[in-house]
């Protein structure tokens, strides 16, 4: 069992390494992708600087908390998209019958498929997360905590993408649902939760768990609430199990295809 996990880890690592090597084929594109993502994220913070020059508190968040919110949003997004980019293309992979190549290999189909593509610009998001930590004035221990929270959040985001992508085993055109669902997770991630009330707030901690991926980590980072840490960790474990369950349930319905294709 342990050897199998070790071997799977080795293959996933090699897969990510080779996918990164592919992205690095063009040096200029590689670096500009990362740089532009940092600049793109930075442009959004300007509106918050303007807002906080007028008032000190927006939705219960201080400016430091906003910086951390952006940091966590970028960190979780970056971690998920860099290591598991194909989780976001899962609908397409299923619809176009591209799971065949992974199904004939003696490895975990889901892990093999989601780790075979990286998104370079997501590295820019990860860097941006740390830049925000720096401006928020986090110490070394908190930066380490930020890293752990980004990884937990990133895995949770990936599991959500897998859940949404797996719907394609049942519904044609489920890619649109997946796109919207993943969009929700990103769009709500950079606003303080205090501005949301009632049903929207309930949704943000249940059906669209932005609250668990992004808002609770802010409380953990600023108020060191250990109970929240366990909560998000347990949520991650539960949703990962659910994602694997749904994917493998759907895999029985997989219909492949005869489209001509190549691994690029």
């Amino acid at each position, binding site marked *: 069992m342990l050897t199998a996990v070790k071997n799977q880890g080795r293959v996933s690592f090699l897969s990510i390494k080779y996918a990164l090597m592919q992205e690095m084929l063009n040096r200029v594109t590689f670096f500009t992708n990362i740089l532009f993502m940092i600049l793109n994220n930075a442009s959004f913070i300007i509106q918050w600087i303007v807002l906080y020059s007028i008032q000190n508190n927006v939705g219960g968040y201080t400016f430091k908390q906003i910086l951390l919110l952006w940091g966590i949003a970028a960190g979780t997004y970056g971690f998920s998209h860099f290591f598991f980019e194909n989780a976001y293309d899962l609908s397409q992979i299923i619809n176009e019958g591209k799971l065949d190549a992974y199904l004939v290999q003696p490895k975990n189909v889901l892990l093999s498929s989601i780790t075979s593509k990286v998104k370079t610009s997501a590295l820019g998001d990860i860097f941006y997360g740390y830049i925000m930590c720096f401006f928020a004035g986090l110490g070394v221990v908190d930066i380490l905590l930020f890293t752990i929270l980004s990884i937990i959040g990133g895995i949770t985001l990936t599991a959500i993408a897998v859940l949404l992508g797996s719907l394609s085993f049942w519904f044609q055109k489920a890619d649109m649902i997946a796109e919207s669902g993943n969009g929700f997770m990103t769009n709500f991630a950079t606003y303080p939760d205090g501005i949301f009330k009632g049903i929207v707030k309930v949704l943000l901690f249940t059906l669209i768990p932005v609250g668990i991926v992004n808002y609770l980590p802010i409380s953990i980072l600023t108020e060191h609430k250990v109970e929240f840490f366990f909560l998000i960790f347990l949520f991650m474990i539960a949703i990962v199990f659910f994602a694997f369950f749904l994917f493998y349930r759907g895999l029985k319905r997989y219909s492949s295809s005869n489209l001509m294709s190549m*691994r690029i």
Partner: protein
Amino acid sequence: MSVIEVKNLQKTFRVKKKESGLKGSLKSIIKPTYRQIEAVKGIDFTVSKGEMIAFIGPNGAGKSTTIKMLTGILYPDSGDISILGLDPKKERKKLAYEIGTVFGQKEQLWTHLTPYDNFKFFGAIYDIPEEVVERKIQELKEVFELEEFLNTPVRNLSLGQRIRCEIVASLIHEPKILFLDEPTIGLDPVVKENIRSLIKRMNKEYKTTIFLTSHDVGDIEKLCKRVIIINHGELVLDDTMENLKYHYLNKKMVEAKMKEKVNLEEEEGITILKDKGYNLKIEVDTTLKSVADALKLLNPDNIVDINISNIPLENIITEIYKKEEEK
């Protein structure tokens, strides 16, 4: 000893029915209707160890669906499959260690990596220790003559070189059965011949069982001793290549250059394929008339040159496909 056993294998796909145009699309959104397509309708066959078998049929016959069920890609609706004693449905990972697959239409290699790096990656996928992979690469490099391009990125290789690498990648873990789905698609005749001789060599040297699907009659004729034909999801023929060629249709082709014109139009058992005066091409049905009798009709003294041959395999297969269509 059977390495593949298939019993009453079935697979049905559900496809949405849609009328043409925008109205049809609206209708299918409000009240979708589906139709069932029976891709494989309860087929049975077995394959013995070391056999080279051609699994053929026209487009949409159920070949790919069957091969995908045998390799664990698709779940069958019903029926039993046993590959080397393993059930692909329940033991997909275990089975993957024992079989190799090459899909001519789907590339499995990373195009930006060299074949060497790809083979190393495949070695890791099959949990093979580094030094064993290295030794295997060196061995396969010799057999498949990869020396020249072993360190060239796959994207820069010709199609023939790529297919050779695809086959090598599928052999790294020394599979007992190799499933080849149209391995020579899109290749020129020289490269095709090269790939065929390599597959033959592999079967001879490693005793690998070969399960081949192809539309290329050359692949089938030159590689396989047994042929299974599938059409409309049903097996229509399972016989040796020899029987297929010499007994299934019992026909010979006679091409003759004559001194004088001969009229064979009314003759039983003879079909005139081409009649250009002194050049004649006829098909003799040997169940109705022997070749000797056909030659007597032509009159040996009247013949300048003659060629008697079997019906090309391609014609035989086409004939079988057509017969099935007519049923």
